[in-house]
């Protein structure tokens, strides 16, 4: 699966003869080893979900948040090295805050995604910095409607209507493609995201996981917030049911 760089992979400032920067590709591998993170854009908002793999039974539930609010109207779900993710979130919060101080209105999601991407890309340009080992899904609701962006360790940032990163991303992408997102409300989207995460979770390799979800939609008054508890429980129950039905076949 992995190709050895042999000599061209020692520094992020070295290209290989076939035009690849191996350090960036290795950084992306760090993201692939983390729990799955999914984001979907429904017709009235954005839903994001994280498969938080529990490494120790002694961890407090609801701790170690993987989804952060950047501003009133936008949030970020992080996959990969958690400490690296904290830096990106802090930077995004700073950008959003200083934009509002200067321009007097909330930062457009497109602008925020661009700034985060620039920052992540910055760390792929200097030999004395290493690339961020995390990918980020950014969801927000501004004057141009709900938007979903994904920023990879290379600094590439695209706008999506459905995105997935982490261990189960291939399987998750296949499931997302089956959904009719343009007709779905966020309330329905929350159930679907939960089902997908439960489905792609590998019971054999990883034991326990905690589902963390957030949304920003009409129902949340265009504010980025945790999915309300009763809806989250409803989603978890529906996901477990779907899994059992699958196993029963």
């Amino acid at each position, binding site marked *: 699966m992995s190709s050895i760089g042999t000599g061209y992979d020692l520094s992020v400032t070295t290209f290989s003869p076939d035009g690849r920067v191996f350090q960036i590709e290795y950084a992306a591998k760090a993201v692939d080893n983390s729990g799955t993170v999914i984001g979907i854009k429904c017709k009235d908002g954005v839903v994001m979900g994280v498969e938080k793999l529990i490494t120790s039974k002694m961890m407090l539930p609801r701790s170690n948040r993987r989804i952060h609010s950047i501003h009133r109207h936008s949030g970020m779900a992080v996959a990969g090295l958690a400490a690296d993710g904290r830096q990106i979130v802090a930077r995004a919060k700073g950008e959003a805050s200083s934009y509002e101080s*200067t*321009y*007097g*209105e909330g930062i*457009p999601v*497109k*602008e925020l995604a661009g700034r985060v991407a620039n920052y992540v890309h910055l760390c792929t340009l200097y030999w004395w910095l290493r690339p961020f080992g995390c990918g980020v899904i950014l969801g927000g609701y501004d*004057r141009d409607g709900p938007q979903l962006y994904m920023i990879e360790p290379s600094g590439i940032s695209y706008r999506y209507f459905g995105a997935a990163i982490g261990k189960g991303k291939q399987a998750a992408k296949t499931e997302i493609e089956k959904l009719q997102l343009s007709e779905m409300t966020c309330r329905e989207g929350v159930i679907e995201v939960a089902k997908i995460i439960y489905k792609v979770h590998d019971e054999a390799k990883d034991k326990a996981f905690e589902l963390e979800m957030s949304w920003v939609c009409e129902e949340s008054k265009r504010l980025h917030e945790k999915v309300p508890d009763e809806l989250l429980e409803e989603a978890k129950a529906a996901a477990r049911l779907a899994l059992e039905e699958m196993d029963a076949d």
Partner: protein
Amino acid sequence: MESLDVDGPHSMGTTIIGVTYDGGVVLGADSRTSTGVYVANRASDKITQLTDNVYVCRSGSAADSQILSDYVRYFLHQHTIQLGQPATVKVAANLVRLLAYNNKNMLQTGLIVGGWDKYEGGKIYGVPLGGTILEQPFAIGGSGSSYLYGFFDQVWKEGMTKEEAESLVVKAVSLAIARDGASGGVVRTVVINADGVTRNFYPGDTLPLWHEEIPAQNSLLDILSAPSPEPMSM
């Protein structure tokens, strides 16, 4: 005979007005720039463009208001490129007030920012001397505005048509010109809406005469169409 300090700091005594109507805004101003009692420019343009869709009415120190407009135009230009779409009136007004507030010890200028954007439609923001920002359905400023507060209280209404709004602005500026020595000249207006920007010009003789004003007689305006006088023979 007191000596005229023609090189002294130029101030715009001024009357400036910004009014929203159903579909956009109308900005209006007089055209007198004075240095003490000398009228340095009797046909100045106090309504300055910041972007395609946002203009600002300037009052107070001419230099201060010009430099501030230049800075804001520059920042807005960069912002528009970055954003990929026209800046909103709110952003323009905010940039104006940050400069006005942070440099309040050095500046002496009151401004009225007005324009149209696709999100909020026509908007007027007043940025008076200290650097406050206040969104208003209409705003008045400059030395001549003192005489207009009662007038607007009486006459203002929401949801006027473009024609009603513009004639209100012209009437108001001409009333202020009649009473304020530091305001005079012509009335300039700028109408901004979804269709774009229209500049209008009302020379002195098209303006209504108010109580106790005498009609123009033997004034330069009468003899404008007459041929130039013969050069003097020595």
